[in-house]
């Protein structure tokens, strides 16, 4: 039922939103149970992903890839391909001889290889043709002469071999980045420790496995505007790099990111295909599209870096950490990607949630002739987290302390500082521990489970965005523009990238809540550089905190205007006006209310068109350390997580089954609890898969992908062991454990309404929790991931032999 607003003639003929007469519900949308605003559209197939888009006269692009892990390109003859009917253009490295890379200081990639190829799958040439089939046929006609070079597959070899240089002009041989930082007197602390645990850990590589393959379409219009549609999760960085490589000013490029079918870090930098479609569209005057095959997705990779780690951790008698000394070798693959950041993160993100009185880390990232590694969910910190959490478990065993209790004793506290100088604000870590302890029945189960079953615990922390942008800037990191009008609708223009994580829903939730409308009344237009303000993209779990704060800045400005106008009508102070669920009302007397649409009409008639912008810059005070590298990894706020896993080990076959896994995650405040649970589930499953199954493995010398032996040496090393989803062991719905997602809320003053992050944190501790549970179950430690049946069985055999 509507209340007519007789005083306003301009709005009389508008069809009104139906608002019922029920009592005012002041509770708001934040924290309520709701799904994603875009899920129905996507689930019904109406939403259009990049590959669903076509344009008239569109051409298809295919990319020729290197069959060698390491080779010099002697010559490329594309004349036969160019002569094939239906082929419109062929390009090679010489057509785009500008290096790019997401980190401005380490740009070492060409869109198409120039001079050298550095892994099997490196892009060499691209064809635009009338169909994919013709483009493919043309690829077969391109004659590339290679001079095959010895390849480096083993990262240890990258350190020692001086005769093979993957990037000849790199000042440090095959070392891509080296970081050593030391805080306090580590050696003295270790020397005085009651107990020192010293172990080696191997963290294998894993890839993202997003269901949607990378895809891009380019088009240059009559006025010279280049538009690129892409499955990217960083439209802004893509735009920057397109501008640099193609030598175009930013305003002549438009990047549009349609809905993305999963990314997980695997689409967080530019790829060969985006440059190729842009260049080919420019050359042919036609729209050009390129869609990766699944195998190309495995080549593109940028997945989790394999880490070889050596950790020394000292403890006192009560299980308190006295010092941590960690040395890591990161296998970076062929290029830099985010590697500089990964190398810092490998040490910097470990400083919480436990106090480290003395800490040293020494991390070296090397180049190898393999698909390039980059960021995957929990970038750079999942690997050292595995090591430290197993170290704690080992100490608890030796000292006879319950591993949950040991973690409590080491907790760094709220409003504290890590030894590296990072400011930790809110922290619900202790609540996370208690929650998983309670929910899993830890106290009565632990030690009382039948043979072959065990429980393990681990904790972790993660960032809510990085305080400092990838390129140095004083500009805002996120921005939002909001409009309302007489229809009762709210329009949000935001640069964030919806990649399935729910960023559109997060801004819609905040906008709906602050402006008193329902979620369905909010339209979000995201990630179109012509229409939306700049946001840096979906990475490092920055979206909720940064775009959320930007959104709040804009909505609060608009809400204040609304309140003022309404307060005048009701002759009450603006602070007495509430806005919720399509109603404006008086807090002091809930019987006084008007439909929110009337409030919008009133405000629009008095103030003119209603709009506001909001932007977010990270804090400058009390964030990070005051030394070189002390800013990298620092975040405005940190999330906290704890996992308990219950596993069963089949001692006959070595197979490990995770029966149940409990995850408690402190996300600050859950703006959309269902989405937070979804992220806890997705993260934990992904972690469980990395613990037990997934392995992006590159074969060393002499192995073919079907397992047959073949000759070793130049040109035969570096094949992918699993370049299909049949052999790459992603879990199916039949492999995943029972999962209990527990939300812990510890709002942080720096987050929008206290929100921090949920997208990546809940992955970390799942892996060590499972590893620790395996030990509890059968008494063997598998410090070399993934925990395969082969390794478990071998370890059980060794244990039986030793007695």
């Amino acid at each position: 039922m509507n209340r007519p607003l007789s005083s306003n003639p301009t709005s009389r003929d508008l069809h009104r939103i139906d608002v019922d007469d029920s009592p005012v519900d002041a509770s708001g949308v934040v924290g309520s149970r709701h799904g994603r605003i875009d899920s129905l559209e996507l689930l019904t197939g109406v939403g259009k992903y990049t590959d669903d888009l076509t344009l008239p006269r569109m051409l298809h692009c295919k990319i020729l890839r290197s069959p060698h892990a390491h080779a010099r390109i002697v010559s490329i003859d594309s004349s036969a391909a160019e002569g094939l009917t239906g082929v419109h253009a062929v390009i090679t490295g010489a057509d785009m001889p500008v290096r790019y890379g997401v980190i401005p200081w380490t740009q070492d990639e060409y869109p198409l290889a120039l001079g050298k190829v550095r892994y099997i799958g490196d892009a060499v040439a691209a064809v635009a043709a009338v169909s994919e089939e013709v483009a493919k046929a043309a690829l077969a006609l391109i004659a590339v002469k290679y001079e095959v070079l010895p390849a480096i597959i083993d990262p240890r070899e990258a350190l020692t071999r001086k005769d093979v240089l993957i990037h000849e002009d790199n000042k440090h041989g095959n070392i891509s980045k080296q970081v050593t930082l030391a805080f306090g007197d580590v050696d003295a602390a270790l020397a005085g420790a009651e107990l020192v645990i010293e172990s080696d850990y191997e963290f294998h590589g894993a890839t993202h496995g997003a269901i949607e393959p990378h895809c891009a379409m380019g088009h240059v219009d009559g006025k010279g505007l280049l538009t690129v549609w892409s499955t990217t999760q960083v439209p802004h960085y893509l735009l920057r790099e397109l501008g640099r490589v193609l030598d175009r000013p930013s305003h002549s490029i438009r990047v549009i990111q349609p809905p993305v079918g999963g990314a997980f870090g695997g689409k967080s930098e530019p790829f060969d295909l985006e440059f190729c479609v842009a260049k080919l569209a420019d050359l042919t005057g036609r729209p050009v599209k390129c869609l990766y095959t699944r195998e190309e997705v495995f080549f593109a990779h940028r997945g989790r870096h394999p880490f070889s780690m050596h950790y020394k951790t000292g403890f006192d008698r009560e299980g308190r950490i006295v010092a941590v000394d960690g040395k890591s070798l990161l296998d970076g693959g062929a290029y830099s990607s985010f590697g500089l950041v990964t190398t810092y993160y490998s040490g910097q993100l470990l400083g919480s949630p436990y106090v480290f009185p003395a800490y040293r880390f020494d991390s070296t990232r090397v180049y190898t002739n393999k698909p390039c590694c980059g960021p995957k969910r929990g970038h750079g910190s999942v690997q050292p987290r595995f090591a430290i959490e197993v170290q704690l478990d080992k100490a608890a065993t030796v000292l006879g302390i319950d591993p949950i209790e040991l973690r409590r004793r080491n907790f760094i506290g709220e409003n504290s500082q890590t030894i590296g100088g990072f400011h930790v604000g809110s922290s619900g870590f202790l609540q996370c521990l208690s929650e998983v302890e309670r929910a899993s029945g830890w106290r009565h189960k632990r030690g009382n489970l039948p043979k072959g079953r065990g429980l393990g615990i681990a904790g972790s922390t993660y960032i809510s965005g990085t305080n400092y942008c990838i390129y140095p800037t004083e500009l805002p990191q996120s921005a939002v523009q909001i409009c309302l009008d007489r229809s009762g609708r709210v329009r949000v223009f935001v640069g964030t990238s919806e990649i399935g994580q729910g960023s559109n829903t997060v801004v819609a939730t905040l906008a709906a809540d602050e402006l008193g409308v329902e979620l369905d009344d909010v339209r979000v237009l995201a990630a179109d550089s012509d229409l939306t303000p700049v946001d840096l993209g979906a990475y490092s779990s920055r979206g909720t905190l940064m775009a959320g704060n930007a959104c709040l800045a804009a909505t609060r400005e608009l809400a204040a205007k609304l309140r003022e106008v309404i307060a005048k009508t009701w002759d009450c102070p603006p602070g007495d006006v509430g806005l919720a669920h399509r109603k404006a009302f008086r807090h002091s007397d809930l019987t006084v209310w008007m439909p929110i649409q009337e409030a919008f009409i009133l405000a629009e008639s008095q103030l003119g068109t209603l709009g506001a912008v909001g932007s977010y810059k990270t804090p400058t005070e009390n964030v990070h350390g005051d030394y070189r590298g002390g800013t990298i990894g620092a975040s405005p706020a940190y999330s906290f997580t704890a996992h308990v896993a219950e596993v069963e080990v089949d001692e006959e076959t070595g197979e490990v089954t995770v029966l149940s896994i409990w995850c408690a995650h402190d996300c600050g405040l859950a703006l959309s609890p269902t989405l937070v649970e979804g992220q806890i589930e997705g993260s934990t499953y992904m972690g469980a898969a990395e613990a037990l199954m997934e392995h992006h493995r590159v074969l060393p010398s002499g192995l073919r992908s079907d397992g047959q032996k073949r000759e070793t040496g130049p040109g035969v090393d570096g094949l992918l062991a699993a370049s299909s989803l049949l052999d790459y062991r992603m879990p199916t719905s039949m492999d995943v454990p029972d999962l209990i997602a527990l939300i812990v809320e510890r709002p942080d003053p720096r987050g929008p309404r206290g929100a921090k992050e949920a997208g990546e944190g809940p992955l970390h501790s799942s892996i060590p929790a499972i590893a620790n549970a395996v030990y509890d179950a059968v008494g063997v430690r598998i410090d070399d991931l993934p925990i395969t049946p082969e390794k478990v069985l071998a370890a059980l055999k060794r244990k039986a032999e030793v007695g």
Partner: protein
Amino acid sequence: MQAVMLRDVEVMRPRTLDEALRLLDRAHREGVRLRPMAGCTDVLVDAHFGKALPERFLDVWGLRKELGGLRWTEAGLVIGATCTYAEALETPKFVAELPALAKAASQVGARQIQARGTFAGNVENASPAADAAPMLLALDAQVKLASLQGVRTVPLLNYWSGYRQTVRRPDELITAIVVPAAALGSQGQWFRKVGTRAYQAITKVGLASRLQWQGGKLVDVRLAAISMAATPKRCATLETYLKGRELATIDAAELRHAQAVDLQPIDDVRSNATYRAEVFARLVEQALRETHLATAH
């Protein structure tokens, strides 16, 4: 690597078995490779991974009237060449009489694959990692082949001639797989697959077996190994060692010794030889224990 362009492939769709055999015969005489296709769950995988393909296919899916379904005859159970796993699993008598084959069928790929995949395709594909074919081997099944020259029956024991090779002539079509009457409902049918994941998994090591006990003694032993040799393989030495024994007299070391004569597994991307050998031995031990226990009651 290169997905096949299906439009460049000729697919022949005979409506009767007779027509199919004539097409095969003609192609054979003309020296053209005409490859049968049933559920296509292997054929299309080959195509996707760029294996050399013949330019012609013979689609037997349309022959389901003649080659479909399950038929119980005096000789045994006739599994038609187009009978899918799903069809068999929906037949209670099949599941009751051949529980281990049903278990194997239910673990091939997942539901979608089971709806298309056929027993005959599994046999002809001759993969060492196949699941249903080794169980058929343990059940003494036979392959019925037809051509214009006539019909013949080949025991599975002699059917695989090498890695992904069979004795089928290019002009022959499998019309059925027959499980002999003696095997139907027989005791001691046992199957276990150790795969790379719960479903959609290729078997790393597996055992398909039939172990018959009488008065506490093993009177009949059939062990077929999965992913342990170039083809699904019966273990003659191991079977001889086990035959006539009581459970208590089976020695773990001797068992492994005998096994090593029959099977020399390899390292590959899915597992390694050590693991395969050890787990296979344990599967044999588990099968012995469990089938023994089942007959003791």
